[in-house]
């Protein structure tokens, strides 16, 4: 089951929210959450998939061991043993899950890239808990059910964020579901659904038209950018839904992505998407910047290691991960180059140039991820400059761009931070005139949110029934 399943949005989610509101105690809410998560994770699959949750017990024991072994000084190397054991067990769990419970990539399926992440978030949570106990950032949890709530909660399964146990420990024991949280949560869920269904579908169509049977120069550019946009909106949409689900349950969590900032170049973009996981690995590898800028050698090594892990992860299932591995390696090199000096060199350039640079780099990296062979990538790259195709734009692509222009503009405002800021500030100025204007602006916002939800549901119904 995923967040964008109709049966989840319209049956499982409302039912569990209502059931969990029946009692105010955190223990009752945690119990409902654990049972729902088990059902969510095993829905449509053999219950054996829940064997992966045995790592909760092992991580709990390893956490207790790490707390004892770290010593009073906190620098006893014996404390690393539980951390290493947790790392190995969690990697095995990810491999077990991906090999047995995920479909093969087959032809390009964008959703496949994102679906693979659910087990990763689960295992990273377990490992981060043991690591934080060893580092002394959080105490060892003696109540296994609290740890189980943290590890199993389906809110964090699909697309993060990666929450550290210390940040959520107090909320597991005591939290309150207020009207404000419910309101913000529902807004996040509905808008996230719109991103993951409507906008993602829009760019899927553009991708298939641009990279499909009719090859044109503009189609190659637009198609590949649309592939990146499809992944971006699917992932951020799921993150928004996840955050909304947490709020309806009383949890307040950080967002898992940041606004795109052109000043940070590609490094900022790569670090801004899935920022909680990036932050964890920066902390783990000692490049978080708290002790000054890391050396170029260390940065290169760490980037390469992350690229290796990313590529290896996607290649566990089948060869389709070759593209992901190549993209990860290229991204790592680019990040290293930017941190080494390119960012400084581009500091004085105007924002428009930086945006163009960002578009070019994202297109290039997306191209590496899209194709499984270098020959196909090379052929596509040639069409970008007009080699191999005499055509600039196909009729189908032109028509599709015109017929979906409104949605493309909405997607632009969702991604471009200055445009979004301008729009919101215009809305704030209108709201500030009087109470009546404020009410009108709020009414329009509510109406738009409701419309997004209705359109998303209808799109999903049409998709599922195949009419």
């Amino acid at each position, binding site marked *: 089951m995923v967040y964008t399943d109709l049966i989840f949005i319209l049956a499982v989610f*409302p039912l569990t929210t209502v059931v969990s509101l029946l009692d105010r105690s955190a223990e009752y809410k945690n119990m409902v959450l654990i049972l729902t998560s088990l059902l969510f994770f095993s829905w449509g699959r053999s219950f054996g998939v829940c064997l992966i949750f045995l790592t909760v017990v092992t991580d709990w024991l390893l956490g207790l061991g790490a707390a004892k072994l770290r010593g009073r000084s906190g620098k006893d190397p014996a404390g690393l043993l539980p951390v290493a054991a947790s790392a190995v067990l969690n990697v095995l769990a990810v491999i077990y899950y991906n090999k047995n419970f995920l479909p093969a990539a087959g032809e390009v399926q964008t959703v496949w890239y994102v679906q693979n992440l659910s087990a990763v978030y689960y295992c990273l949570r377990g490992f981060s808990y043991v690591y934080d106990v060893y580092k002394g950032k959080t105490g060892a949890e003696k109540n296994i059910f609290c740890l189980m709530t943290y590890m199993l909660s389906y809110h964090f399964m699909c697309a993060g964020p990666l929450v550290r146990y210390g940040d959520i420990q107090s909320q597991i024991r005591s939290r309150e579901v207020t009207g404000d949280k419910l309101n913000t949560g529902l807004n996040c869920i509905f808008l996230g659904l719109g991103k993951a269904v409507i906008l993602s579908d*829009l760019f899927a169509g553009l991708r298939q038209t641009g990279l499909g049977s009719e090859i044109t120069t503009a189609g190659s550019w637009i198609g590949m950018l649309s592939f990146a946009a499809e992944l971006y909106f699917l992932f951020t949409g799921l993150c928004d839904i996840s955050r909304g689900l947490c709020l309806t349950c009383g949890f307040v969590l950080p967002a898992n992505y940041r606004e795109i900032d052109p000043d940070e170049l590609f490094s900022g973009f790569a670090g801004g998407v899935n920022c909680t996981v990036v932050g964890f690995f920066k902390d783990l590898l000692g490049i978080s910047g708290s002790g000054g800028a890391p050396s170029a050698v260390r940065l290169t090594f760490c980037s390469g290691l992350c690229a290796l892990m990313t590529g290896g992860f996607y290649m566990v299932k089948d060869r389709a991960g070759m593209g992901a591995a190549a993209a990860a390696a290229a991204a790592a090199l680019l990040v290293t180059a930017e941190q080494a000096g390119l960012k400084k060199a581009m500091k004085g350039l105007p924002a428009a140039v930086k945006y163009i640079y960002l578009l070019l780099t994202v297109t290039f990296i997306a191209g590496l991820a899209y194709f499984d062979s270098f020959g196909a990538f090379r052929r596509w790259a040639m069409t970008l400059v007009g080699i191999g195709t005499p055509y600039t734009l196909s009729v189908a692509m032109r028509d599709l761009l015109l017929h979906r222009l409104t949605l493309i503009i909405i997607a632009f405002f969702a991604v471009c931070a200055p445009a979004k800021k301008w729009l919101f500030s215009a809305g704030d100025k209108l709201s500030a005139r009087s109470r009546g204007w404020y009410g009108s602006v709020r009414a329009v916002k509510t109406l738009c949110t409701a419309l997004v939800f209705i359109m998303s549901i209808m799109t999903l119904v049409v998709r599922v029934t195949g009419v």
Partner: protein
Amino acid sequence: MESDIRNDFKRLKSQADRVPVPEDCEENDRAIGFLEREMGVGHFDSLNLLVLSALLIFVAAAFLAVSSGKVDDNDKVGLSAKTFLSGEYTRALTDNYNEQLPIPETMKKIEEKLSVFYGLGNSFGEPEKNGKLPSGYEVSPFESDEDDEGGIGNSGKHENTLKVTTVITDENGETVTTEEEVTAKNGGTTALTRPPETSSTTTAFNMYTTTKSETTTNNNAPSITTTTTTMATRATKPTETEPTDTEPTDTEPTESTEPTDTEPTDLTDPPDTSGPEE
């Protein structure tokens, strides 16, 4: 002592009187306005929550209560330990829920109508082809195992190279088939597959030559008449125009269904259907 205090008081009062105090305090008004808006924020938040939760509950209840009317008892999976643990029961629940979704055709029509607002050029009542292929059918023309000498996706050939098959009946009544590859002037059109309703087949006969030609009618008429018989090898599913047999029996007598822009060449005698057809 008391007089000192009185003197100090008078002195301070005179100093205060020199500072002008406005009658209406603008800062006070701004604060009141802010408080009003603050009260409105909570009010509109509650309204927002009410509307969205009512919508969600209404849609959820409607989907559960109203079914599409399809009844299929044959495939019902009962709840048992085996079916639950294997996932069969939950899969059946999902399938049943998806099949029982109410009014899917009406929803599709409403979605198509609302998608008019998605951009320019959309019109009511016309289903929008958004370019999205059915899932599972995503062919990348860039994926080719052969080296390309010219053009992408069509190994060794320009992407608009067409194979023309010419069937000639010579004076001895023998059928000779020749094939050649031609590229349309100006590269032809960008449409690589032509729907059948835009194409017509005409057959021109003379005593010695039987030529099958096919013309397309679209907004951008090609500069030459091309015969489309075989498309690029990269096509993974049968195309609308199949490679024809060399046997003339597959060709129809002259029945041009649509007006053609070019006349068949060498049409001097009435068609002799008995000759070419075996």
